[in-house]
């Protein structure tokens, strides 16, 4: 055969086979049409019945969500039965009359009625419309008696998420709210679940897969008026797993109280002088409008809102978090039902952002609490030893810049333990400069700063531990020695979260083991790897922290734990928020309490107890709280005192 003929032959084959393929397609399509005919015409009556809800209504039964309990089995998040009231216009003879009748049996607002009428006007008549949520027992009883005379009215039992501790654990539990289309997009199998609520933040989000459980399904026999007669369960839903947290609600409550109160006294809201103060202060009005129910009288007699900030109590061996307080907070129960716009507006109007979890996502300069890191880095690098002394005359010159010590008269000649005890800035300027930012950063990373801790809740911030590369990448200019000096006292670019401070303190306390924080209760012992910091360096730094509380000149000597509780070690930190000019310094306007709140220093404290065999670490940040020693240290002591009382000595 010639080439041409071959080609022709090939084309013919292809044409033939294409026709064959086409016929095959027509055949298959006929088959599909047959199937459609079978469903839609032959079995039409059967499916019509099913669809008219005259026989069975197949429903997915949402699973019971796993509960959250604290370390002593007290409920943090549970489920309560809740009843929804629906009306289906198709079955209701006269919607207006039905609504009027309902209004006599259950509480119905004017806006509820208009909403239902609007929905009935817009949507198809077979669609049930939600009339009311969370019916009370009494309303339910009244409805049940009359249900025969109320065509088209159905009520449905659902489980509603409740948080018995309310705002106290808001930032720990987080909250659930109705599933979003985005979540369905990510996990198609959720699309089958109507009315499912999923965790959006906090532990509820982090442990979602465990807490959710598996849906079941049931068939509901309905009569022609759309009312359920009988229910057949095909499959019971499988409840989600209950999870026990390390949190101790008693401690959480106590720490919340002392943090919010700070150094002030609670006032009687009804007294005329307080009412007068509220009337003349727009900031106070805002706080009260956003749901705040407590006001304080500060040491100079001014009426103020409660303090805001963060406090954490952690077990130094297991990493368990016994208390995690972020103030101000919010009530997670608000989110369970359809969030009322009013509540949402109030939350957002709050001047201090209650939705921000300050423990994990609040970033603060660590101030002097960073000095342990600098000391460790210098000791490990051999830059200093226990007896290396530097002379502090209240300032340090570098080039043409002057760096001041907080104590203007100067601390004199100090070694590392004394420098920690009295929080001498100049000593740390000197050794930071000699040690260099790279070694300081490495040590900070080792102790858990500069990266997320991996706690079980979302939204954690990594903070910033700067170095040469970071500066170049973010600011496009080189790192200068002056910046190392500032970083040496935990200011400048350095930013940490309170949670990181707690982790750092726990690692100092437990002999430099790499614990990580856990919101879950941990059964039995856990072993964490060593960080590889020498015992001698650690001992020196801990001695410094001991002297802070016990030394004659220790910055927090008046806030120590009693010796029969084993005493405590710690470190204060006071972080400038607003630079004070030379003129102001000379004029002596340095008293925090006399400055506007926004301009006051942040007060920080980290510590652990008991001194021998440390068991608990604590970190406290009070926003614009003034000084670390007078504001944050007492809060830390109160927390340690309580946790020691409750759990006793090992």
């Amino acid at each position, binding site marked *: 055969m010639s080439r041409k003929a071959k080609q022709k032959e090939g084309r013919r084959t292809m044409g033939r086979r294409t026709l064959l393929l086409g016929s095959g397609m027509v055949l298959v399509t006929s088959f599909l049409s047959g199937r459609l005919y079978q469903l839609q015409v032959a079995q039409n009556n059967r499916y019509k019945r099913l669809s008219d809800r005259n026989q069975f209504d*197949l429903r997915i039964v949402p699973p019971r969500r796993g509960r959250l309990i604290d370390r002593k089995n007290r409920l943090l998040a549970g489920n309560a039965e809740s009843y929804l009231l629906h009306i289906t216009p198709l079955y209701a003879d006269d919607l207006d009359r039905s609504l009027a009748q309902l209004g006599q049996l259950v509480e119905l607002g004017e806006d509820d009625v208009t909403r239902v009428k609007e929905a009935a006007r817009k949507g198809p008549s077979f669609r049930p419309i939600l009339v009311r949520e969370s019916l009370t027992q009494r309303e339910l009883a009244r409805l049940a008696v009359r249900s025969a005379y109320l065509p088209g009215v159905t009520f449905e039992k659902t489980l509603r998420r409740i948080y018995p501790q309310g705002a106290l654990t808001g930032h720990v539990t987080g909250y659930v709210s109705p599933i979003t289309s985005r979540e369905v997009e990510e996990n198609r199998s959720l699309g089958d679940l109507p009315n499912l609520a999923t965790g959006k933040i906090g532990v509820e989000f982090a442990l979602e897969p465990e807490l959710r459980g598996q849906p079941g399904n049931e068939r509901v026999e309905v009569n022609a008026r759309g009312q359920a007669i009988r229910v057949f369960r095909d499959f019971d839903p499988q409840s989600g797993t209950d999870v026990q947290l390390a949190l101790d609600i008693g401690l959480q409550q106590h720490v919340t109280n002392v943090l919010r109160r700070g150094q002030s006294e609670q006032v009687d809201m009804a007294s005329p002088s307080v009412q007068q103060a509220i009337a003349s202060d727009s900031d106070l009005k805002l706080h009260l409008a956003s749901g705040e129910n407590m006001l304080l009288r500060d040491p100079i007699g001014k009426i103020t809102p409660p303090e805001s900030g963060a406090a954490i109590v952690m077990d130094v061996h297991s990493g368990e978090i016994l208390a995690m307080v972020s103030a101000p907070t919010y009530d997670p129960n608000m989110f369970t039902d359809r969030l009322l716009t009013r509540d949402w507006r109030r939350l957002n109007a709050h001047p201090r952002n209650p939705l921000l979890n300050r423990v994990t996502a609040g970033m603060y300069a660590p101030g002097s609490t960073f000095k342990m890191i600098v000391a460790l880095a210098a000791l490990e690098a051999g830059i200093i030893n226990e007896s290396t002394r530097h002379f502090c005359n209240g300032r340090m010159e570098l080039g043409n810049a002057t760096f001041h010590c907080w104590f203007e008269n100067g601390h004199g000649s100090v070694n590392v333990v004394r420098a920690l005890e009295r929080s001498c800035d100049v000593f740390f300027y000197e050794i930071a400069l000699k040690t260099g930012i790279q070694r300081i950063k490495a040590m900070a990373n080792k102790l858990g700063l500069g990266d997320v801790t991996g706690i079980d809740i979302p939204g954690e911030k990594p903070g910033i531990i700067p170095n040469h590369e970071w500066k170049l990448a973010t600011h496009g200019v080189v790192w200068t020695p002056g910046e190392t000096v500032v970083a040496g006292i935990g200011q400048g670019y350095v930013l940490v979260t309170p949670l990181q401070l707690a982790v750092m303190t726990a690692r100092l306390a437990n002999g430099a083991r790499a614990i990580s924080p856990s919101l879950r209760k941990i059964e039995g012992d856990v072993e964490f790897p060593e960080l590889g910091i020498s015992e001698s360096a650690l001992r020196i730094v801990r001695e410094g922290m001991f002297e802070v509380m016990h030394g004659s000149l220790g910055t927090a000597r008046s806030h120590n734990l009693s010796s029969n509780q084993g005493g405590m070690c710690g470190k204060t930190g006071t972080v400038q928020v607003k630079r004070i000019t030379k003129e102001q310094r000379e004029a002596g306007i340095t008293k925090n309490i006399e400055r506007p709140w926004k301009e006051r220093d942040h007060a920080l404290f980290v510590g652990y107890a008991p001194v021998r065999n440390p068991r608990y670490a604590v970190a406290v940040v009070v926003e614009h709280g003034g000084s670390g020693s007078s504001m944050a240290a007492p809060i830390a002591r109160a927390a340690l005192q309580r946790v020691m009382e409750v759990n006793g000595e090992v």
Partner: protein
Amino acid sequence: MKSETVGILQTILRIPWHLLFVAGVLVVIGAMALYSASEGSWAPWAGRHAIRGAIGASMVLILAFINFRLLRIWAYPIYMASIVMLVALLAVGGDGGVARWITFGGFTFQPSEPTKIAVLLALARYFDSQPLERMRSVLTYLPPLVMTGVPFMLIVEQPDLGTALALALGSVAILFVAGLPWRYLLASIVLGVSAVPVLWSQLHDYQKARVMTFLNPGADQLGAGYQITQSKIALGSGGMFGKGFLMGSQSQLNYLPEKQTDFVFTMIGEEFGLVGNMSILGLYLLMIGGVLTISMRVKSRFAQLTCVGVGVMLFLYVFVNVAMVTGLLPVVGAPLPLISYGGTAMLTVFLGLGIVTSAVVHDRPDVE
């Protein structure tokens, strides 16, 4: 020798307008269905669907001006690029999660969809270069098996069963038209059946559940049977003429999951009945018939095979989706072309039509 180029007027005259018209009708039907799916509103689906349809149609017109011979040259590079994309996708989502989408700038894109086009182009290019006397040798069919097998495994790995099956069947159809001897065809069917256990082990749990549900609807643990049951109720209650636009109570009451994507055919069936469904099947047959007719008319072997491939691809979309919603196949997740909401599948269909258009416009016999 005629000149290589085709003038603008000639191009416009040669465009298969009937195909575009049918596609347009299908997009309009889709937009109406989606309007109903969101309870009578252009948001969130219907409006965007219509806009995408317009963009897709203009894409076909642009492709008409692209010289078809370029596609032949680019067939292999395009194929390689799509394989690389699939591998990258697995590398990204390799933590047991489902990795089907690439997201950029709020736009999600499923690379496994256009991969079908890439594979059919590569196969057409391959058979085009084989001398006819080689079509009888078994060795000739080893490369196409590998060319299909690699993307197939990658897509199963994702796992996207619907797309993987469509890809495999489409390839077999191209081999068949290219002149695969009958005995090999039977052998490959046997091979395909024996691959089932391997595939099974690759599936995610929820997909296994869907297949099991399909085989045994009584034992339903996950609600996968729920979807099928609801789909059958909605379809079956539609009857001959349906309940009317916006009156599909099953669909409107949210008993029907995925009504804007995989189960849009069901919703149309409930609201427009058997008549509505059959009309849609008729439109698809018109479109596919048009494409296959073109395949028999074009003069070059490469063009012929490409057009057959596009026709088969369109048919498989329709078949898998309709079989799924009528409970003949497990729920694998397959869109209805030009009607389901979803950008990537629509893009793929228009891409296929654009290639067919280009094949017609720039048709020339193979150069000796």
